[in-house]
């Protein structure tokens, strides 16, 4: 009961918001307050639960609380809270109403929590779909904007398709082992792995690669990221992705851990292709949302490197990189939102011209986020990449690690186009003034990026001292 208390509190807050909508109490401020209150209560409950030991099975072995799950739940709570702050101006200007929007975000977060803590294919699938169904609606939330509907449609069709592929894989794994539990699966896997298991494993891998937007299953990402409302794009690039990576890590290193030799070729190939294609495609983009979308494809490749490594450093790198990514990518999208004007303004690379003279602090914040995305020492992104590349080299994946470092250099190239525009290019007309929530979100992201870049021990001590995943 106590393990899922955060999820229960979030679901209660989400349902309360729907109830408020029902009794026609549609004040945006009330909705924001309830949603942030629900998230704070959930985070507090999570911080106060101290299980007797990490990784004990609860609810007949369907969920567990291990250090990885504990940590990533905070990451997704942080993502949802930041996205709620970013959405304030955007949703109010569009007149779309905060109440249902906040409810959908909270319910998606409930799904993410279950995706993170599940040790059973059934609860994992239900968590995944709870998250996905809310996300499809959120992608189309900008009612009346054609491209938002288009994004919702693409996300829906490809999301549902990938869920079906994943499910088919799960059903084959069930056929091979006779169990749906991830930890039992590891024990019951036939040795040597039979055809049924191998086919299932490949389909599960394809389904999960779809969910984390890795090459060759990334084609939906740029359109969905560009078309969805910008706060939701920020949400997609960290929340569902972090949760999907948690499940990915759990399935492949816990359940399929004994057959690492079979799947590491498959995932290694996907990892290298993702890093290369994502970062190279980002170079030619003129729309900042699309550029960040391709860069987030590239980042998924970096995270896959940690998954491939199959060691403590790799797993720590996955968690720390996602944590650092939370601040960097949400921050970058909040700057895009800060610059937003009518008719999709603020989205082109040229819209960043002369930003350092108009808003020196915002330009500085964007610089910090971009440096963290590149992985420059002193930022949180560097520590994440340090563990990812270090883990990969320890695990014997030298070539993918070298390609990853080269691709980080490529990312510096396209991000510096933005920096040059901000600091060197001549000035452009003034933007509108923004409310405090966006500025607060930018501030939190800058503080997080610098603090956890200079003082990573605050988090890494916790991550390195205990086995991260329940076995």
């Amino acid at each position, binding site marked *: 009961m106590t393990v899922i208390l955060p999820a229960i509190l979030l679901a209660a807050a989400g349902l309360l918001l729907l109830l408020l909508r029902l009794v026609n109490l549609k004040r945006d401020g009330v909705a924001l307050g309830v949603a942030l209150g629900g998230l704070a209560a959930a985070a507090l409950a999570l911080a106060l639960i101290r299980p007797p030991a990490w990784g004990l099975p609860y609810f007949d072995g369907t969920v567990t609380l291990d250090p990885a799950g504990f940590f990533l739940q905070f990451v997704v709570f942080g993502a949802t809270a930041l996205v709620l702050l970013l959405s304030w101006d955007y949703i109010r200007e569009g007149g779309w109403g905060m109440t249902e929007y906040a409810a959908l975000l909270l319910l998606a977060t409930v799904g993410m929590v279950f995706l993170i803590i599940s040790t059973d294919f*059934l609860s994992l699938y239900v968590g995944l779909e709870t998250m996905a169904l809310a996300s499809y609606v959120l992608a189309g939330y900008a009612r009346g904007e054609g491209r938002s509907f288009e994004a919702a449609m693409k996300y829906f*069709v490809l999301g*549902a398709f990938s869920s079906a592929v994943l499910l088919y894989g799960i*059903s084959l794994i*069930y056929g091979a082992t006779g169990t749906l539990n991830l930890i039992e699966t590891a024990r019951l896997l036939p040795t040597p792995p039979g055809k049924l298991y191998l086919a299932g494993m490949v389909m599960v891998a394809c389904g999960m690669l779809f969910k984390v937007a890795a090459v060759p299953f990334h084609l939906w990402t740029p359109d969905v990221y560009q078309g969805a409302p910008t706060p939701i794009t920020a949400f997609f690039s960290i929340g569902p992705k972090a949760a999907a990576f948690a499940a990915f890590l759990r399935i492949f290193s816990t359940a399929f851990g004994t057959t690492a030799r079979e799947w590491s070729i498959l995932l290694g190939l996907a990892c290298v292709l993702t890093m290369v294609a994502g970062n190279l495609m980002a170079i030619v983009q003129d729309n900042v949302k699309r550029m960040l979308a391709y860069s987030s494809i590239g980042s998924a490749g970096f995270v896959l490197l940690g998954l491939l490594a199959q060691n403590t450093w790799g797993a720590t790198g996955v968690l720390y990189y996602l944590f650092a990514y939370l601040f960097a990518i949400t921050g970058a999208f909040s700057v895009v939102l800060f610059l937003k004007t009518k008719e999709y303004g603020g989205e082109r690379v040229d819209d960043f011209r002369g930003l350092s003279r108009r808003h020196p602090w915002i330009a500085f914040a964007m610089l910090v986020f971009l440096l963290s995305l590149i992985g420059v020492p002193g930022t949180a992104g560097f520590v994440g990449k340090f563990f990812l590349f270090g883990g990969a080299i320890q695990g014997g994946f030298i070539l993918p690690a070298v390609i990853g470092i080269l691709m980080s250099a490529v990312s510096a190239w396209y991000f510096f186009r933005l920096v040059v525009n901000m600091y060197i290019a001549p000035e452009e007309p003034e933007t509108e003034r923004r409310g405090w929530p966006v500025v607060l979100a930018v501030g939190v992201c800058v503080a997080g990026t610098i603090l956890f870049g200079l003082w990573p021990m605050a988090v890494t001590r916790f991550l390195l001292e205990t086995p991260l995943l329940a076995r």
Partner: protein
Amino acid sequence: MITATHYLVLSACLFGIGAVGVMVRKNLITLLLSIELMLNAVNLNLIAFSHQWGDMLGQVFAIFVMAVAAGEAAIGLGIITAIYRNRGTVEADQVRGMEG
């Protein structure tokens, strides 16, 4: 004697038809139907294996899949309705507005 293998072949056929449908058809309603076909192939697998292993969990899973599929259909049709109102068509290739 019908064994799990027979069901596996049938479900693989169903899944294949559904997957090809998603890839080649352009009508959004047909896409939704194809996805439902894929999910039903999964259900067939789960129930066949549940019978083979003498384990109820597979059948429970199939019921969950049906429930989620119903939710998915509701949201999918909602999105398709919104697109029809906005663009006046449900053909996927006429909806595209963004590059790429």
